């Protein structure tokens, strides 16, 4: 089983669904303290649901890039040791702050993931994972720029979004270019398309090299 400790399938309304233990953050169903992690709303959730080995094991140190309103980051914070949640947009910050208020492990940062020097004085090195879900052009560059936070055996767990790079090109070609760029600093361990739950997204697990 590749699920981290603290992530499990639980029964909700007769269906087995991915879940973590924590304070509900966005009105998701809760049974016995476990709250549903909706794989349709969360790319990382979809990766777990697809059986991808992310390398996350529980009690991890995580840098989360593109936390948005904290839906996925809150689940990660439920099982991680510490989650540095970076989000550049001010608008979703209210929700992210609410999620952080209920979680001792969640550290919100209003920063641009393309400029790691603006948070390198806060985020520690030697982390177990960089989880990346940023909707910006140059996603491979973002991953390379944030490699410095990872331990040697740490993992990049990224959801690359083709439409953020170029809406006119074929996603397969975009992913090929992005992976080639990633390999400048990473060894790619696994890739998987996340369709149909997340169209034109490629899940990537990689480790620094």
């Amino acid at each position, binding site marked *: 089983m590749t699920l981290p400790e603290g992530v499990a399938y639980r029964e909700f309304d007769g269906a087995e669904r991915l879940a973590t233990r924590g304070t509900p953050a966005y009105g998701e169903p809760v049974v016995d303290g476990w709250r549903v992690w909706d794989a349709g709303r969360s790319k990382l959730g979809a990766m777990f649901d697809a059986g991808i080995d992310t390398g996350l094991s529980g009690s991890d140190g995580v840098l989360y890039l593109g936390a948005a309103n904290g839906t996925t980051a809150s689940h990660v914070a439920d099982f991680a040791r510490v989650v540095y949640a970076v989000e550049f947009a*001010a*608008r979703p910050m209210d929700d*992210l702050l609410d999620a952080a208020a209920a979680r001792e492990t969640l550290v919100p940062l209003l920063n641009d993931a393309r400029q790691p020097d603006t948070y*390198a*004085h*806060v*985020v*520690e090195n*030697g982390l177990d994972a960089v989880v990346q879900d940023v*909707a910006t052009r140059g996603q491979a560059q973002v991953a390379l720029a944030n490699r410095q936070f990872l331990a040697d055996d740490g993992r990049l767990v990224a959801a690359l979004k083709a439409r953020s790079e170029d809406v006119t090109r074929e996603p397969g070609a975009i992913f090929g270019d992005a992976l080639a760029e990633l390999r400048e600093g990473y060894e790619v361990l696994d890739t998987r398309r996340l369709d149909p739950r997340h169209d034109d997204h490629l899940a990537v697990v990689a480790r620094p090299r």
Partner: protein
Amino acid sequence: MSEGWFAGVEPDDPEAGAAAIRDGRADAPADWPGLAVEAGFADDSREYYARLRAAAIEAARTAAAERERADDRQAIHAVRAMDDAERTANELAERVAEWSASRYGESGTDVEYCRELVRRADAGGVAAEGPDASATAPTADGTPPTADGALAGLAARVVELDAEADRLRAFVEHTAGAVAPNLAALAGPVLGARLLALAGSLESLAKKPSGTIQVLGAEEALFAHLRGAAPSPKHGVVYTHEYVRSTRPEERGSAARALAGKLAIAARIDYYAGDRRPALERELDERIARIQARGDGSGGGTGATDGPESNGNDEGDGDDSGDRPADGRPPGDG
């Protein structure tokens, strides 16, 4: 060697910590929890994380609130105030011109002429009526007000009002760039702010179709068109954009439509994402270059019959179907 955010911060002062998180930077990360405990900032890593989290939440909260305050409402108020100041300055400048023509027999209708009057009054020792002086009250030194003084005073107000409009413009440029960076980059900050004002908010602009953005500010012409009394307007305030104005009249509708399309995307990115996308500008540049190259005779063979008369057969650009508001008609926004 870079320092961690906690350097020089009192452990029990989350606000100082928040400031250090917001303003600090480092070339590379380090084992901050370990270093902080070593430096006595916290007794153990548990305490360190608690202090870090408290400071980070404070930092994110204040930074987000600040960005929200520098928001679209401020840009809208400022651009309206700027327009009011400019319009009023121009109206008063005309009044000054009319009045001065009756005394000095010369004409000049703009703010520049008012500046000239003020200079002359200063040089000639005419006491301009200040804002404190009422029209009928004696001036500060007890002498009754003179027509020259009143006129010079009014001219001075015009000059000040014009300077105020400039200050407001600078503020609009700053604010529009902060609240809607992509829109401001594509439209220019002042036109961007005008579009925000016409739509009412960034949210409302982000939810408008590009066809609506294209004719924002031409509502009168649009409703005349809908009543069947006029051709559809080709453009509203987007007309003030150089890409529309610098395009030949026959292609202006196309340019306005292309511009509005990109502005709609820019507004949506600004509202929903917030990051800068320089690619948008490049796409717009290319699109406008293509439109402006149409039928100007340099099309290398294909352009020969591609004048405005060949309407309905727009070359190339796929999004030209459903060509509305239509090209090749006189501007409808009066």
